[in-house]
């Protein structure tokens, strides 16, 4: 009916919702990330106590010992909301898919040495269980985490970890030409081989951590901070330099993914540390509590793969982690 009107500017009564205006200041236009992470978690008038946690409210700030003036400060620098997240992942997945089918169709993994194949079977494939553990842990964070920025980002991180576990499964199946026995063997190792028991123990212990921020620090910072470089930087390098170049095509996404997810992990940790001395001390104590176990677990795997170079590999991983920790204020 009104073609002319549509092209004309229509006067707006307000720029955004009240709670966003309170947050950003009057006159500021929110972007779509801000529109969905602020003000969405119910704040008051809770009708019933959870039967599964009768001491606390449904959404309760006390599910972590970390204290924040405003938990909505734990923002994601990637500014992922659902649409941007799935679109980004689908793009990455598309290019990754090409790599997988090239390796699969051309049989590029066939010609690598048996020793390298053993590395993939015994180290890379069992690690899918660790990614599955990371899926569970991030769903704990998304369930009990306070406020939407952490809850939504942890949901996406949790889904990412399921994706990672599934990509590792595919690597195994490509190597075995779809014989699922390779996965059974890897699971046996995961459950019983001494090399994996350190990691499996830390992960199972992490399953019973209630404090979601402690879990975030352990899973997304410490465990990832040691194991992702170990597997997808050092082990990958080891395989590639020994004639397994095709392997890099399969793990490229893990490197990109880790570099990206680190930004979120670091940003959230930094904000909480900068908030108060108390937070910072707490996080340091968590780091002191868990880091030795994580490092010992990684050491066992490094020893098995890198033999006499194991010291050097671990040194380089820990140097990098310590650097990062110093920047964040986790280490003085």
């Amino acid at each position: 009916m009104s073609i002319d009107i549509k092209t004309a500017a229509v006067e707006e009564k307000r720029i955004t919702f009240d709670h966003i205006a309170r947050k950003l200041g009057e006159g500021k236009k929110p972007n779509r990330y801000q529109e969905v992470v602020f003000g969405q978690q119910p704040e008051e008038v809770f009708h019933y106590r959870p039967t599964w946690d009768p001491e606390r409210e449904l959404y309760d700030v006390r599910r972590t010992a970390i204290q924040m003036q405003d938990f909505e400060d734990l923002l994601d620098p990637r500014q992922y909301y659902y649409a941007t997240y799935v679109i980004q992942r689908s793009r990455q997945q598309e290019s990754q898919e090409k790599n997988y089918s090239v390796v699969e169709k051309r049989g590029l993994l066939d010609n690598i040495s048996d020793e390298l194949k053993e590395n993939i079977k015994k180290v890379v494939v069992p690690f899918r269980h660790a990614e599955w553990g990371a899926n569970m842990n991030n769903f704990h964070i998304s369930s009990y985490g306070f406020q939407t920025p952490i809850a939504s980002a942890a949901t996406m991180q949790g889904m990412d970890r399921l994706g990672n576990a599934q990509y590792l499964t595919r690597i195994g199946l490509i190597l075995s030409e779809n014989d699922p026995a390779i996965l059974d063997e890897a699971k046996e190792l995961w459950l019983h081989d001494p090399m994996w028991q350190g990691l499996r123990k830390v992960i199972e212990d992490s399953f019973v951590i209630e404090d979601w921020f402690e879990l975030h620090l352990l899973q997304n910072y410490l465990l990832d901070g040691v194991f992702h470089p170990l597997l997808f930087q050092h082990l990958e390098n080891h395989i590639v330099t020994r004639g397994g170049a095709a392997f890099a095509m399969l793990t490229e996404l893990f490197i990109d993914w880790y570099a990206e997810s680190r930004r979120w992990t670091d940003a959230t940790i930094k904000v909480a540390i900068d908030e108060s001395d108390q937070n910072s001390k707490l996080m340091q104590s968590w780091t002191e509590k868990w880091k030795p176990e994580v490092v010992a677990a990684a050491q066992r795997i490094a020893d098995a793969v890198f033999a006499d170079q194991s010291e050097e590999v671990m040194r380089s991983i820990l140097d990098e982690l310590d650097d990062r920790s110093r920047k964040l204020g986790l280490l003085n």
Partner: protein
Amino acid sequence: MAKNQRRLNLSQKYQLMTRGLDWETTYQPMDKVFPYDKYEGIKITDWDKWQDPFRLTMDAYWKYQAEKERKLYAILDSVVQNNSQQNISDARYLNAVKIWMQGVTPLEYAAFRGFNMLGRGFRGAGARVACQFQAIDEMRHYQTQVHAFAHYNKFFNGFNQHARIRDRAWYLSIPKSYFEDAMTAGPFEFITAISFSFEYVLTNLLFMPFVSGAAHNGDMATTTFGFSAQSDESRHMTLGLEIVKFMLEQHEDNVPIVQEWLDKWFWRGYRLLGLIGTMMDYMLPKKVMSWRQAWEIYWEENGVALFNDLARYGIRMPKHHETATREKYRITHEFWSTIYQFSHATALYTWLPDEEEMDWLCAEYGELFEKLYKPRYEYWRELDARGERFFQKRLPVVCNVCQIPIFHTYPDDPCKNICLVSEYKGTKHQMCSEGCKDIFDREPEKYCQAYIPPQQIYQGNCGGATLEDYRKWLHIRDEDAGEYYGSEDNQLWEKWQAEAARV
């Protein structure tokens, strides 16, 4: 060189990609790793019997959902660019959208958080993964809705304060308490309540009218996110049916527990949907179908058939379903009459049906409407004409379970108001129906905790003891509430219409 390798079928592949990843913990006992899935008394003897309702791997999910999001956001952008808010049927329609944003979008959010808990909480890996997909889907739903409605907020009232009134407003306690009831229960009850009772049994009564209503009334933004969400919803419905069958098949002791939940959540869901029925009957300038008709199709035919299917597990029809069916001729009129009288304490506008709408209501609801409700509306119209638009001065008594104002009448007498009372620990609690009273009496410890807005207001806990104080506490201005005709939304709409006519 093409390779000739063995093939895995979809279900084998899916198995390896999900459940194959899981293991029995030994460094920590499984009961500590999954502390919440036994206390409700549901017995699962073999999680491996779980049938995965949708076999999605992450790569397929990302790809499929990204496709949908690209299309959806292209339309949302074009709505902004073309000022498509001017193409709706009438600004009265937006009150349906306001109810959605104030009351239903928060439920999408609650579903997002609730399914996260199940995505971590269930011991069975297959069930866990299914819940994770639903969790992130629900995150999608609340986000796309906020994005779609953000544009309407720029022009119309009743959207801007939604985050505050979501928690505080008396009429929004109806959906809020519903979902919090489910979330504070254990994981099996939650999923029975939400995936089965709400999404599988009743969703058609919620989603279809709202989304088709949006399409009929020229609301592109809502229509688009609604249809886009539908393929997610069909996954959720499948999950609902699967979980209920699974519980029933796992152990005979589960049958009576599940039956009690089905009774409770049928009634609670039915009460909640009365709000949506009212929206369908009164808020859509262009009607889709009446509540009565929707009830007949989606409950009396489809719902009943579903329960008949479940009879082989020893499940009977939910308690009080006859009452719900008997009420189909009156519930929306009783509800609208209530909102009409109390809309000065909401962030909604209300109005009286015009002649044409009155005829439609008579045709849809017959004698009862003509005899009972039409004269009431005509009386109010006379008052309105004399400049005495009718508003209640006091707050309504609300049901301690469903939190709806107690305007209901006896199943066999639509002229006699019902109010049932249960006493618990020396305090009297009022309920709107036998259905709600049963729910209260089964778990009095839970429902006596409920935050009942009128009681809280009169105790001065909501900014003061008067309606005026209360409204201030809600951040609702005079201009956001009450009668539609003459409201700011109405004036703006008239202005746009006049400008369009001039062109």
